[in-house]
């Protein structure tokens, strides 16, 4: 197994920190990346509005490059629904022209190990990125995410909102970077991460970076890591729900805003059912 586990660096945080924290690099098995297909290129012409849903299941690696023209908008839903025991790596790169907008929804479920990279370049003035991600991991699963919003144009707006649950012995790293490049005057960046810990044996690492070379910006991030809200659980169990049902309800309620953005009803159902089943099994 040792030779098969040789890893290569698939992604990095823009500014490294202490090595002992183990967040500087996203590493992926060299074997997984051997079958890397050519990146898929999606171009949205200026002024157009499109929606695209990408579901990856059996492919080990996917790479998507998106260019959104001036004033155009793309609603991109990307779901990684990995088969049990598989390792996979997904990369999405987005470039936004003037007043372009991406509404991005990512879901990571299943598999043994998922690497998920997102790089959004807000080049154009007035461009915006509304990014929401959802994950759930249990057993021995590992999810490793690296999201970067690089704000270059004037008056850009970036929002990263990531939430998920960890059970069993699952491990997850989320790195989220808001990078205000010098000159991005008037830009706003928001990052929010909420992690629900459902087992004492999980490992959660969060690295919410905020980098700024520009004074005329407003950047904020907030991270909260903890167990399920005891008050909500108490309320539900006092109304006759079993604790397992109450937990399932609370977790699904937290996931609901993300699922609402998944316009393909069958896909939304599949994701909901997947989480419900895993919560029941756990």
């Amino acid at each position: 197994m040792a030779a098969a586990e040789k890893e290569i660096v698939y992604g990095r945080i823009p500014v490294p920190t202490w090595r002992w924290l183990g967040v500087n690099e996203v590493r992926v098995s060299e074997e997984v990346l051997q079958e890397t297909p050519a990146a898929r290129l999606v171009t949205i012409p200026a002024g157009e509005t499109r929606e695209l849903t990408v579901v990856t299941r059996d492919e080990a690696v996917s790479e998507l490059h998106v260019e959104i023209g001036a004033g155009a908008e793309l609603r991109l839903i990307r779901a990684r629904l990995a088969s049990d025991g598989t390792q996979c790596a997904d990369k999405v790169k987005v470039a936004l022209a003037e007043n372009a907008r991406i509404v991005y929804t990512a879901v990571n479920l299943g598999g043994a190990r998922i690497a998920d990279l997102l790089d959004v370049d807000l080049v154009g003035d007035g461009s915006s990125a509304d990014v929401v991600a959802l994950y759930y991991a249990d057993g021995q699963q590992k999810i490793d995410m690296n999201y970067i919003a690089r704000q270059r144009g004037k008056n850009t707006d970036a929002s990263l909102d990531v939430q998920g649950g960890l059970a069993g012995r699952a491990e997850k790293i989320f790195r989220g970077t808001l990078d205000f490049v010098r000159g991005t005057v008037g830009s706003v960046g928001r990052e929010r991460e909420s992690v629900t810990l459902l087992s004492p044996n999980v490992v959660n690492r969060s690295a919410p970076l905020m980098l700024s070379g520009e004074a005329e910006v407003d950047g904020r991030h907030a991270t909260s890591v903890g167990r399920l809200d005891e008050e909500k659980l108490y309320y539900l169990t006092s109304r006759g729900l079993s604790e397992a049902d109450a937990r399932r309800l609370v977790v699904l309620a937290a996931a609901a805003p993300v699922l609402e953005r998944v316009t393909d009803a069958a896909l939304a159902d599949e994701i909901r059912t997947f989480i419900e089943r895993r919560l029941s099994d756990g």
Partner: protein
Amino acid sequence: MAKQKTFIEDIERALYDVRGEDRPRYRSESGLTEEIVRDISERKRDPAWMTEMRLESLAVYNETPLPAWGPDLSALDMEKIATYVQPDAQMAGRWEDVPDEIRDAFDRLGIPEAEKESLAGVGAQYDSEVVYHSIQSSLTKQGVIYTDMETALREHEDIVRAHFMKLVPPKDHKFAALHGAVWSGGSFVYVPAGVEVKIPLQSYFRLNAPGAGQFEHTLIIVEKGASLHFIEGCSAPKYSVTNLHAGCVELYVREGARLRYSTIENWSKNMMNLNTKRALVEKGGLIEWVSGSFGSRVSMLYPTSILSGEGARCEFTGVTFAGRGQHLDTGATVVHAAPRTSSVINTRSISKDGGVAVYRSGVKVAAGAKGVKCAVNCESLMLDDVSRSDTIPVMDVREDDADVGHEAKIGRISDEAIYYLTSRGIKEDEARAMIVRGFVEPIAKALPMEYAVEMNNLINMELEGTRG
């Protein structure tokens, strides 16, 4: 109309920049060799175990690479640094016995005056050696020990040996190894069980020699149920050559004990400040860090608290002010290694004139550390578009019964706040000044009074119509 910006003056440094004549009794060759390390050890009459530790540290230093993260350290050339500079003075217990020129330096910094008014003991280090040490007799009668590290090594060797570089082992990083090899001076404090030291002790470190390093070691042990407030100050005059500070602070806070460790760092802008501070806090103990970073060309400073006993607590309060030519990479690390431990980290940073302020932190919650609470809040204010402000926090949580929160903000002075205040009759320049003072106020109020006043004096504000 061009937007107005608050102009905050550089920190007034005239007081700190007065140079004493560079006339040491002894100055080691520049560079770092085994001969130099052996020479320092011999001059200090180290016991054999200490000489051995120095040489082992040198070996670690030589095989350890520079950090792969953080500020650029390429300006640091150890071949041009004298690691040991012995001032022309014996350690004295009375200021009258300190040579005039050295005493003048501390007089200008207000140390003897502060001692009279508000301190229970003072240590003063000049270059590589402590030149003055005193402690109130009422404390010695209670068994409190406050002395320089060399005296502690002679008179309390067993205690020193059991604790020295145990919290910060030389293998920790390259500059911990450097410190282990060439350390000199610093303070030793021992507070017996149950003793409350109600008035602070203060050590002041002054590096006068150009092209030199200061490597003082501070070791504090606060026994069960005891308490102490220790203040550390440091400064140096500015030279055109690089100076280096690689001190080490090891703090042991026993069961139910409390230690407040306050630092105002105001090194000159030719200083590389690569300092290491760490505290081990036992059951129910409390470590409070109050840290002001104003000086130096480069700083890498992240006090670490290891909360090893149930219910141990850490409160970290820090302010960083990075001006022209400065890259101040500061922050904190907390390891929650026991149940029901808690920590609060609260920082503010200001960057201006091309200064770089970085907040870097690590919070770790170990498996089994149930009931942990941790709240981190860091805010950064940028005053122009040539400066930088980065926030690099990491949380590593391995226990579900934990409540960890982190909040951060980066931005400029808000137009809405200015509008609100001016609409209530406050002049705009005063409104801006109020906002900046309010920004650092949570930190200022945690400082000892004389330092809070000094910080306010350091941050002189004026408004310019379209500056920036």
